[in-house]
């Protein structure tokens, strides 16, 4: 057999080294980290959802006084910031983290400790942004934080500092995770899996990650500039000091629009996987999919000024961005053809994930098509900062992104937890959410046509928007009920413990369905040999339905009856803690705290470099050997 474990002088263990509560802190396992991300994301989704309900309560009637104008702006800003950076983003990284490495036949991501540090950055970023409520008031300058409203002069409080520090940490997390995923996908695929044989989701992960790395940089730089303006009195954005308020808008939207695709591509990935699996067919037009993803990755760079049609840039500039914006709709619309081609001739089973996926298709049509209208620079002169835009991007953000991710979450739930969902609870929850969603946002498109601005905390009875807003508010509470039912369904599945088999839905086509549910610590007791375009499906069709292992001498992680595992480490947590302390130093601002945090970060990095991280051997369970 292979090299004996003893020769490498590493400990051999019967159980995983990161079990228990402490293990949640020291773990470097992509699956545990994925679940932490998912849990954190759902928690922040609830926070952002409560903020949305407050917005809808206030707008339910004209001249309502549930909350004041100041509080409304805080709630509005926090809702956007939390939902984008601390709810949607961690849910995506959670799904990708759990599923993607298994799908490509890897035992973990390329940099396990970095993966855990990314999680801490995201968690503490979210905590800092939300802690502002208790530190002199949350940020109220909008999630887009336009200067000069976000400058020290007009937003002097801790809230804006908390936004800058918290979101900066969130972006750092995204960047590190993305680097990790790109390396993992390029370097750690199972033997036999070429790039053009990867499951669709891996392609989406790759392009999402590349976009996130590249688009994140301008925004992080912009936030750094604004920090310096606020803390040290520089004038990058101050017109009085030779700065320019539009500089922020350019940097923000150069990030901000690719960000839409960073959030949307994962949802498209989930829907593609779910429709293909439950229709019993491979994804139709794999090459078109790769082309479309890549085209989106390129074109999303020449669209950012469609957020700025009203800044007086002039017709030639605006027209260039009209063409860029409409062009990016082509690869996005290709997915409609890909999905319809996948369903054509298939046998679609209407499970809960399929419900969400099908709903996503229709809402995505509406979100995308309404976007084509405000992509016109002329028409957008009327729609800019008007409720039409709010309706449009929620059809993309909830109808597209959230429904897509819920399709993925419910599809992989049995894999991630090992328990089947009860569809008798899940489906009514879906319908309540679906109807509530349309009831909330369809009226907002009409409000936009009737000239209602967005981000107003109230309106006059004679402006005529009362009825539509009331309907919209009722819809928002229906959505809340739908989400509660979904959470109940998730909890019920864990409590009633209906065990999921390896191929939990019986329709699996890729590698994650070839290993037990939930996945064991080492994912694959023996590395699978990929022999076809869809690894598991190929074996179902041409083999015995089980993956063939690669020869032991090719499986470098396997030694005897054990698998080489990465060492758990507390150093990511130490670095994260240092960033948290330093972050609060920036928020207050308090120099001592900032320096103390910096010292902890430095110590953590030192410990990281010096600790023994050669890993250990985990003995494979007999039935999986």
């Amino acid at each position, binding site marked *: 057999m292979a090299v004996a474990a003893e020769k490498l002088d590493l400990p051999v263990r019967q159980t995983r080294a990161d079990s228990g509560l402490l293990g949640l802190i020291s773990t470097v396992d992509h699956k545990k980290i994925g679940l932490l991300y998912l849990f954190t994301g759902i928690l922040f989704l609830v926070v952002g959802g409560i903020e949305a309900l407050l917005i809808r309560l206030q707008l339910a009637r004209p001249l309502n006084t549930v909350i004041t104008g100041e509080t409304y702006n805080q709630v509005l800003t926090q809702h956007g910031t939390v939902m984008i950076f601390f709810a949607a983003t961690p849910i995506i990284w959670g799904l990708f983290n759990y599923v993607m490495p298994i799908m490509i036949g890897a035992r973990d991501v390329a940099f396990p400790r970095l993966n855990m540090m990314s999680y801490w950055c995201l968690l503490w970023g979210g905590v800092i942004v939300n802690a502002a409520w208790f530190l002199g008031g949350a940020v109220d300058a909008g999630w887009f934080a336009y200067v000069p409203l976000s400058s020290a002069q007009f937003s002097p409080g801790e809230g804006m500092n908390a936004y800058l520090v918290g979101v900066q940490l969130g972006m750092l997390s995204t960047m590190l995770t993305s680097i990790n995923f790109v390396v993992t996908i390029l370097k750690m695929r199972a033997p036999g899996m070429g790039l053009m044989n990867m499951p669709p989701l891996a392609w989406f992960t790759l392009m999402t990650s590349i976009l996130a790395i590249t688009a994140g940089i301008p925004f992080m730089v912009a936030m750094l500039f604004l920090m310096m303006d606020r803390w040290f009195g520089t004038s990058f954005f101050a017109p009085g000091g030779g700065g320019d308020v539009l500089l922020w808008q350019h940097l923000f939207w150069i990030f901000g629009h690719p960000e839409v695709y960073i959030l949307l591509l994962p949802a498209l990935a989930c829907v593609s996987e779910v429709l293909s699996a439950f229709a019993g067919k491979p994804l139709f037009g794999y090459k078109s999919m790769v082309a479309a993803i890549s085209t989106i990755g390129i074109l999303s760079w020449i669209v950012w000024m469609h957020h700025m049609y009203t800044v007086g840039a002039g017709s030639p500039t605006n027209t260039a961005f009209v063409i860029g914006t409409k062009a990016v709709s082509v690869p996005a619309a290709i997915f409609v053809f890909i999905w319809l081609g996948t369903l054509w001739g298939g046998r679609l089973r209407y499970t809960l994930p399929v419900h969400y996926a099908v709903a996503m298709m229709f809402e995505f049509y509406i979100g995308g098509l309404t976007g084509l209208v405000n992509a*016109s620079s002329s028409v957008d002169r009327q729609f800019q900062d008007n409720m039409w835009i709010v309706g449009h991007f929620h059809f993309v953000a909830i109808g597209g992104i959230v429904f897509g991710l819920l399709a993925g979450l419910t599809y992989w739930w049995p894999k991630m937890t090992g328990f089947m969902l009860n569809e008798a609870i899940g489906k009514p929850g879906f319908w309540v959410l679906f109807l509530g969603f349309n009831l909330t946002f369809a009226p907002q498109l009409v409000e*936009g046509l009737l000239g209602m601005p967005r981000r107003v905390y109230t309106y006059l009875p004679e*402006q005529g928007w009362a009825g539509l807003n009331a309907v919209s508010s009722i819809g928002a509470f229906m959505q809340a009920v739908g989400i509660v039912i979904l959470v109940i369904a998730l909890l019920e599945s864990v409590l009633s413990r209906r065990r999921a088999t390896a191929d939990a839905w019986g329709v699996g086509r890729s590698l994650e369905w070839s290993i037990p549910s939930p996945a064991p610590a080492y994912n694959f007791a023996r590395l699978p040999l990929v022999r076809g375009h869809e690894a598991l499906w190929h074996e179902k069709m041409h083999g015995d339905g089980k993956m063939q292992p690669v020869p032991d001498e090719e499986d470098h992680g396997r030694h005897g009856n054990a698998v080489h595992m990465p060492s758990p480490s507390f150093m990511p947590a130490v670095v994260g803690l240092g960033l948290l302390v330093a972050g609060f130093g920036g928020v207050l601002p308090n120099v001592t705290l900032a320096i103390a945090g910096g010292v902890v970060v430095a110590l953590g990095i030192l410990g990281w470099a010096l600790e023994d991280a050669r890993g250990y051997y985990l003995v494979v369970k007999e039935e999986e050997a």
Partner: protein
Amino acid sequence: MALTKWDPERSRKRRWFYVRGARTRRLLAGGAALAALAASPPVLAQEVRYPQTLLKPAGDQARALYEAMAWDIEFITFVFFIVSLITAFILIRFKHRDGEDGLPPQATGNLRWELGAWLVLIVGLIVMALHPLKAETVFASMPKGDDAIDVQVIGHQWWWEIRYPKLGIVTANELHIPTGTPVRIATTSVDVIHSFEIPRLGGKNDSLPGRWTKFWIEADEPGIYQGQCFELCGASHARMLARVIAHTPADFEAWVRARQNPQSQPESDLARAGEQTFKATCALCHTIDGTAAKGTIGPNLTAFGTRTSIGGGVLANTPENLAKWLADPAAIKPGSKMPNYNLSKEQIDGLVAYLMGLK
């Protein structure tokens, strides 16, 4: 087919795979959708009830934008129905039915169909991208010539300063214009970013500190056209309204003459008392042409009695509303820079008499 271990029968037997009562649920969903559709036409038909509607343009610029928008919306509605019908057909036709075993054809793609899809979409894109460009040129071509009116609109938290540089008039929140004449607007801001739009008269431009942006509007008919600030600008963003009052050219001439020769002398004892209070408190921030009041922090109050609205356009200009505003500005406009001087009832009555007497 070499199906040795994997057995489709096994998955088919799982009862939770099947949608129970699917028809009932579809009927419910369809009913709700129909109800929503049925409710929307009356909403759209009664546009006059909506002072900021985009669906009833009242000038050339707004009409150009409206036509582009209407075409776009018709186009996407058409596309939505076609694509939805095809999708619905496929979803129903190719759903899994009891007793259907065997494998569906495992097609991985079809070069001809895929290239066709790309081609159709690119053509659609070109049509969609080119059509609204005409409206962009209408919006962007500033009317030339001396018959157009030049106006400066300057955003403040949370009111609009309106200046007519050639006419020597400064006012606030209410932009008077002649009908049938293009109005060139140059806009900027003294604090944060605002955005000025009167939807029925045309599209918006942002008011950016440190920059001037230019656009134009025009009104066909005399009347009052509502608008407001469209860019989040702080606590009272929602209370930063604006209105255009369009006059016939003759009436506009009369308005200009009246504004150039304002009546600013108090005529009753009460108003004279009010003038004294004004000098002691309000004049620090407000200007009244023809008096010693030269403050520039707040709106210019010349001819205040002729205004139709107060408080950034959120209240009608009546003595009662003015008294309410003077008693506690922040109650009407959160964060307002106008302080609450804890004026007595007598002081407020005097101020109301004085201000309403300014013509």
